[in-house]
């Protein structure tokens, strides 16, 4: 939390916050968190197809980082590299360096199971299990060895409360998770993800299947969750990125007309304010002003 050196330095140099003209880290609202992910020259391949090339970025603790960009620009692919979800895709492989709190994510002794236990994920389409609401939330703690009923009750209530779903479902915890509306189901999935107390929550377009009211609820929830978790969110909705995120990464597609291949690439990464108000790259500017993609 208290990154004293940086804060002191920032304070002495900048008595009053004059956001825009400053370099990226200072104009992030609140305290800049410690780096949690360090990504260096990462490329992701699906067999012989290079989906994303040469991504380098630093993700910070207790912040919401948004990945924006057009379809096929590799946002989701990069997101799924953070908790080794791409391992499940036959032929997928990651090149380059990805460090999580100082440990290489793709190191030799690293278990993808342990990685995903700490780095949870919420998917685009709500995907509750065909189990009761209670069992959906208790699923993670149970597979991680929690058997004590009282503790499970506590975890389920706490997670549902944090996911802002408790009041709506507290009287029907034993009914099916599939009977919920889309927005409720997505909040149930968020509750299921945070029930294992992860360190990071990855969200892949969590609100794209939801109406504006449910989307608003999910966004409020994200702002609340970032006090305890680090969140990375992929979104097609630029307003959403400006509403919730502290930093934004803009991805685009490089088309190689000679070999007819399309590869995702990270164009620009900075504070959300800088990306939207003062983009350094013309492609970013075209995208955020709606002239492209």
């Amino acid at each position, binding site marked *: 939390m208290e990154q004293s050196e940086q804060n002191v330095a920032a304070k002495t140099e900048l008595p009053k916050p004059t956001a825009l003209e400053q370099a990226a880290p200072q104009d992030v609202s609140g305290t800049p968190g410690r780096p949690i992910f360090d990504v260096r020259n990462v490329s992701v391949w699906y067999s012989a197809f290079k989906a994303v090339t040469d991504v380098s970025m630093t993700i910070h603790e207790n912040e919401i980082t948004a990945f924006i960009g057009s379809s096929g620009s590799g946002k989701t692919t990069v997101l799924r590299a953070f908790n080794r979800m791409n391992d499940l895709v036959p032929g997928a492989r990651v090149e380059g360096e990805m460090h999580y709190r100082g440990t290489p994510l793709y190191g030799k002794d690293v278990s993808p199971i342990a990685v*995903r236990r700490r780095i949870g994920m919420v998917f685009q389409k709500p*995907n509750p*299990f*065909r189990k009761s609401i209670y069992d959906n939330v208790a*699923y993670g703690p149970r*597979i991680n060895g929690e058997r004590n009923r009282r503790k499970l009750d506590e975890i389920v209530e706490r997670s549902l409360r944090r996911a802002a779903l408790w009041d709506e479902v507290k009287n029907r915890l034993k009914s099916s998770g599939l009977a919920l509306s889309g927005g409720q189901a997505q909040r149930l999935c968020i509750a299921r993800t945070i029930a294992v107390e992860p360190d990071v929550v990855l969200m892949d377009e969590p609100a794209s299947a939801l109406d504006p009211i449910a989307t608003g609820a999910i966004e409020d929830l994200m702002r609340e969750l970032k006090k305890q978790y680090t969140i990375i969110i992929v979104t097609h909705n630029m307003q959403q990125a400006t509403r919730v995120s502290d930093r934004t990464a803009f991805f685009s597609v490089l088309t190689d007309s000679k070999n007819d291949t399309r590869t995702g690439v990270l164009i620009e990464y900075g504070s959300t304010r800088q990306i939207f108000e003062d983009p350094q790259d013309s492609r970013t500017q075209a995208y955020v002003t709606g002239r492209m993609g």
Partner: protein
Amino acid sequence: MMAVATEQPAADLREPAGWRRTKNRVATVLMWVAFVCTLVPLGFVLVTVIAKGASAISWQFLTKGPIPPNVLPVTIGGMGPAVVGTLEITGFAALIAIPLGVLGAVYINEYGGNRALARLIGFMADVMTGVPSIVMGLFIFTIWVLHFGYSGLAGSFALGCLMLPVVIRSSYEMLRLVPDSLREASYAVGATKARVTVTVVLPAAIGGIVSGALLAIARAAGETAPLLFTILVVESTNTNLFSGPNTALATQIFINAQQPFTGAQQRAWGAALTLIAIAFILMLAARIVTARFTRYTR
């Protein structure tokens, strides 16, 4: 557009006449014909078996033994030994084939990926489905009966071999239908592959797996040829599955139906009805069990 006419012609929303309507009608008629063609023989079989078999059925017929000599009327003795034989032989066959088959399907779909072994198992299962049941009986006869003698167990092996490919194929198709999004949801909270399979994939597919297994059991319970070579025939109840010749409803139908004696023929009809009833009860039981498993569908 000036003043709108007061009387607007009513919109014609009927199906347009012509080729499209003709095609529609022809297709509908064809489907009804196909439906009736399927249903009529089925209905005949059922009605005939019930009409001819119902008179033979009694508590004594179902439970008592021994099975009397062919010349005696149906009121003497009963089919008890065959009922017991069918239940134990088919039951043990299911005990062998269902776990193996489901595990095989799990391997092919969840673990095998594109590996040669998985493809080989899938291919062999398909080939095995095409093996005639009498060949399966001869196979067990040569590798088991010749060494260890006739027994209900040998019959179970033969029926198990027949059920295995059916169970593998039907379970595999059900596992394939489980959406990957459920697997990912489970992986995302730190589940191992085994956990994902046991706690998410199998529960999601259980309804279809049970149905498939049940069809396999019902088919196997009616098989005659493989049993002729493996269990021989006895007249009294043999509760020991593992030694000595046994008997089953299917083989009793086969033997009794060939006789010119009224008693024997009535016994055959009665046994046929009993077999159908057992299959029916099994189906019903499985539906109830599956309904419990899938209560969270909505």
